[in-house]
């Protein structure tokens, strides 16, 4: 079994290894705690993972953003002056929800067309999207069991 992981804080922690060990699976993990949804979408398509049995993708807070500083992609809040004004005056939940929807639709479809089962998770407790397989919040104690149960119930053949 081969598993592709990408995401932010949750997946970059112990979850990916615990899950892969449980199923004795090979894996590739691109997750990084700094990643926003755009970065998770971008790095997944840059990697173009194919021939995986399962993809586990964690999306994070819809408001997080990144930009290219001329050398590399960096967290939007690194430009404190611009980002502070943006979040205080221009950013809206509608904008975040729209970008979140783009990323979810894109990766769900990407894995479907590549015949890879996917578990798409949100760790944004404010998300209003109904397109996630799981929404995991800080209150959830046994995240590993939640993901495993989802896999066993809906995907394991």
């Amino acid at each position, binding site marked *: 079994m081969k598993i592709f992981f990408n995401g932010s804080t949750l997946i970059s922690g112990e979850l990916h290894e615990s899950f892969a060990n449980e199923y004795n699976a090979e894996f590739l993990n691109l997750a990084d705690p700094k990643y926003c949804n755009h970065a998770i979408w971008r790095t997944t*398509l840059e990697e173009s993972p194919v021939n995986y049995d399962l993809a586990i993708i964690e999306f994070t807070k819809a408001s997080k953003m990144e*930009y290219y500083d*001329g050398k590399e992609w960096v967290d939007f809040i690194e430009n404190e002056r*611009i980002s502070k004004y943006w979040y205080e005056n*221009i950013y809206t939940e509608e904008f975040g929800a729209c970008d979140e929807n783009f990323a979810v*639709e*894109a990766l769900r*479809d990407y894995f479907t*067309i590549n015949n890879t089962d996917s578990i798409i998770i949100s760790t944004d407790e404010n998300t209003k999207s109904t397109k996630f397989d799981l929404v995991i919040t800080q209150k959830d104690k046994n995240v590993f069991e939640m993901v495993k149960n989802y896999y066993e119930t809906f995907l394991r053949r």
Partner: protein
Amino acid sequence: MKLFFVGDSWTWGDGLRKPHEKKDKIYEKRFSTIIGKKLGAEVVNEAICGLSNHAITRILLEQDLDQYDCIFVQFTYPARTEFFDVTGIPHNARKITTLKHMKKHIPSKYENCKRKLDSEVFTSRWQNILPHFFRWMESGFILDGREFYEQWYEEIYHDEMGRVDEMLLYNLIKTKLTLLNKKHVITTIFPRSSLPVDLNLNKGKYQLDATNHPTHFGHIMIARDIIDLL
């Protein structure tokens, strides 16, 4: 048979209107209508002048795509963007700037334009940002004494960001339409686009008017080339 078109001013038909002609005349002459007539199909054209790739993708995803037999998506310049405004600040700023522009350049239309803008009721809405001219980039949000989006393009936007977003949105649309098993044609008007589109409309082939939009003859040629791709 039902066709769906989305894009910016090129797909909307900007540049087709002659003075004193009604909008219906544009609708008759634009390439979406020509294609619809040729195929004997009903046409839904949701293109709007000034849309960004973000907006074009958003509008496409808002549709019930099941009802369409063929879908035509026209991408645009990747530097354009949009944001969802709930304040009315951009609406008012653009109103003032537009009226100043009309007074200076088209004084005969100033009063009509003012009446129309004065009667508009503000509702929360997506606002387009086009960096090419100040009037189309203005948001009315002022940071340290300057228009916010001027500083956005100086400090945040980078061509690499435009290229990556264009690629991500293209892949989103291409994959979705392929999965839905919908016949589709994806075009762009960005001459330097590296996307593997079916047709780049802005490579010097189609006749353009002074505002860089296809003439009626240009629309006929585009329609013919798109039909050839089907």
